[in-house]
């Protein structure tokens, strides 16, 4: 697509912006061709920001406001097939309304990047963060990443296009951002220069898969049982290839921009020698790290493991991180009704990942912060106390505990 690239950031610059605004800036720096939108809180904060960039003439892209989320995701799917770099997103039940388009995007191997502004699913109508909305793509061939700061939102958006569009991968990428805490809070963010981004992020080249008059192809045929398993296996192989690509791209990112964690998949915070490790995703990291620091000051051996990539799930890294712990307290900002132990989704995945280990830690599940309820430092303290009690008595009273729920 013909675009006039305005040099929005000729030099690196410090900004006071929300996570949504950081992703809006990433869209401009990545020179995204097509953005589609349909308003729903808190995803609409990105819409507002890119609209402003467009109105100001700072960022030129095709901006299509669809009549529903379903069309919104259909449009980027098609745009991606013809070779356009795309961005879209939604929240809560809006994301669910787009689900038919969301599943086919992965099936067609189209590297759409989407932001999920995490929001509780209706009913009741609620705006606050819950992770069940984004979780729903976990079985579909999407990358699924949980962001914890505005800086990480910008950085991971740039990484997302590079990973998703890699010819070895070609799978869509969902960036999960906690509603309110990321989408509506402004933090100091280091924005890189356009030149830095240009040298990091190549143009999207779909090659022989590009839908174009010069490359006559058809996509998305109907198949019968003779074909489907092979097609599924191809997507599976792409998902199995992506961890190596993620590692490679993450290392390049760290070299180019000078920031990042040791691992792209997980963040280990004081986990070494920890007897009890808390596990969580997204902005839960803030109160949890504070609680861990205080407990460490008091001499308690506690650590925190932040799961960043939920898909692909970094099984081996997580096994290594947790294997030394006696107790693991998994905090879920989501829930799966009627699931094993009546627990959360992250808990089920972690327990499954730890099953092959010879020495398995005691694992407890804490359901907290649903619908955006604040998770406080004292809540984390209680989780650790409950886990310690299970270790001391050698007895688990209940595997799943709902935290700070009014009886």
């Amino acid at each position, binding site marked *: 697509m013909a675009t006039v690239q305005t040099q929005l950031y000729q030099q690196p610059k*410090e900004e*006071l912006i929300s996570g949504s605004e950081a992703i809006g800036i990433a869209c401009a720096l990545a020179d995204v061709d097509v953005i589609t939108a349909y308003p729903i*809180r808190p995803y609409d904060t990105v819409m507002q920001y890119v609209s402003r960039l467009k109105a100001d003439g700072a960022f030129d892209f095709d901006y299509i406001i669809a009549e529903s989320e379903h069309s919104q995701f259909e449009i980027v799917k098609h745009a991606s097939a013809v070779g356009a770099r795309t961005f879209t997103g939604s929240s809560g039940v809006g994301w669910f309304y787009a689900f038919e388009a969301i599943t086919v995007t992965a099936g067609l191997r189209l590297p759409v990047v989407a932001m999920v502004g995490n929001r509780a699913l209706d*009913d*009741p109508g609620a*705006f*606050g963060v819950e992770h069940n909305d984004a979780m729903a793509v976990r079985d579909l061939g999407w990358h699924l990443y949980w962001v914890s*700061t505005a800086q990480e939102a910008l950085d991971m958006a740039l990484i997302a296009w590079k990973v998703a569009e890699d010819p070895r991968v070609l799978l869509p990428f969902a960036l999960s951002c*906690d*509603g*309110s*805490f990321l989408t*509506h*809070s*402004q*933090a*100091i963010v280091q924005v890189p220069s356009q030149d830095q981004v240009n040298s990091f992020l190549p143009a999207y080249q779909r090659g022989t898969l590009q839908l174009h008059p010069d490359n006559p192809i058809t996509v998305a045929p109907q198949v019968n049982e003779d074909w489907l398993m092979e097609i599924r296996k191809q997507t599976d192989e792409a998902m199995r290839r992506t961890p190596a690509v993620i590692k490679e791209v993450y290392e390049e990112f760290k070299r180019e921009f000078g920031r990042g964690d040791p691992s792209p998949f997980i963040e280990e915070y004081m986990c070494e020698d920890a007897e009890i490790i808390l596990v969580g995703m997204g*902005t*839960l990291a*803030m*109160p949890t*790290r*504070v609680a861990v*620091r205080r407990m460490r000051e008091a001499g308690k051996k506690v650590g925190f493991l932040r799961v960043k990539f939920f898909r692909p799930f970094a099984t081996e890294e997580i096994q290594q991180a947790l294997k030394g712990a006696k107790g693991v307290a998994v905090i879920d900002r989501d829930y799966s009704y009627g699931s094993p132990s009546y627990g959360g989704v992250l808990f089920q995945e972690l327990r499954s990942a730890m099953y092959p280990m010879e020495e398995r830690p005691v694992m407890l599940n804490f359901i907290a912060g649903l619908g*955006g309820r*604040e*998770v406080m*430092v004292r809540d984390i303290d209680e989780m650790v106390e409950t886990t310690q009690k299970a270790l001391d008595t050698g007895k688990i009273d209940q595997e799943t505990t709902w935290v700070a*729920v*009014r*009886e």
Partner: protein
Amino acid sequence: MATHAVEVVYRGIFQRTLARNIVRQIVFAARKDGKIGTAFGRYSDSPERNGIPAKQFAVVCDTALELEESLAVYEATNVDVTINVDDAMCKGIESWAWYGLQPINELTKPDGTLIVTSRQDADSLLEDIHQKDTAYNLAVIPSTVSFSGLWVYKDDHTDMRVLGTLCKVCPELVSVEAMLESINEQTGNATKVSSVQKAFDRSTTRLVEPGEGNSETPFSFDMPGWKTMEEGLVIRAVPEGGGFRGGEDGYQPGRSEVFKKWSVRSMRPVINFETCIKCTLCWLQCPDTCFDITPDGLYDANMESCCGCGVCEAVCPVPDCVTMVSESEFNDNNSQWEAWTADKDAYNTWSTVLVEKQKTETRTHGFHHVGGYDEEIQAEEI
């Protein structure tokens, strides 16, 4: 190692840009002092509605590590400075975010400061401001309350005066030098810089002793737990209404026992019962069914239900029957009709004074109010 927090209590939509400017400038200026900060609005306050009390916060720390505790929360647990940009909210804050009335100084730390923009003096404001167990300081910025709208911003330097005052009362949050440098950098406007400096130079505070202020207990509400709530997301209707306040004549609609309006208004209607022609329009059009029909067929605006939207004033066909008056003029929610019935002369004198005073106030919400558009209309006719 230190963390300092500021809250700005403001009227939704009307003062959103004002509040945002203040909290963002605090973080920008603190950067000049080598600190790091965050600025955020209370998520549950939005989507904002006209005039509903809302909050924004700025938290500033020496290090990013310290700041972490103030991230991923809706509201700071306590603040060094509370900034109230509408003096009517000294009566307390009812936002979308919680049920009940939060005293304006509830989050203000011991020895912290409450800054209010007002034409009233400190003693007059303290008639409304709830008592606190600990001492704090009160700084009044003499100014007309600054209201604008979603699409327009009244750039009357209220933000600059607040920031100058803030640097004086809480220099450990941000130095005035850093603030002046930052405002200059962000706005490039010398008169704004000068407004900050003037407010800094002129700022004075008054110590508020423990127990000083309004002794009323703020309205609060106990939320039920999952074992006591009805299942299936059912909300029972309020019972049907009936006669006027226990009597058989007149009519009072059924209303929620627990959900009442106390400080959401920034203005309230004052009724001239002498000129009312009983046309029913205020009663019909009020979005909150706040009008009670009196036994003599008049309409009494019930202040436990009125959100201060001003529709009654806009639809009333009689020029001087309904007038929206600044909420800061009132200290109770008493019935106007009962006052008028008890002593008509006294009521009429009282209401005339209020209505006359309102004509000199520039408090306006952007909706039509009596006389509000006269100048524009006349200009168009010519």
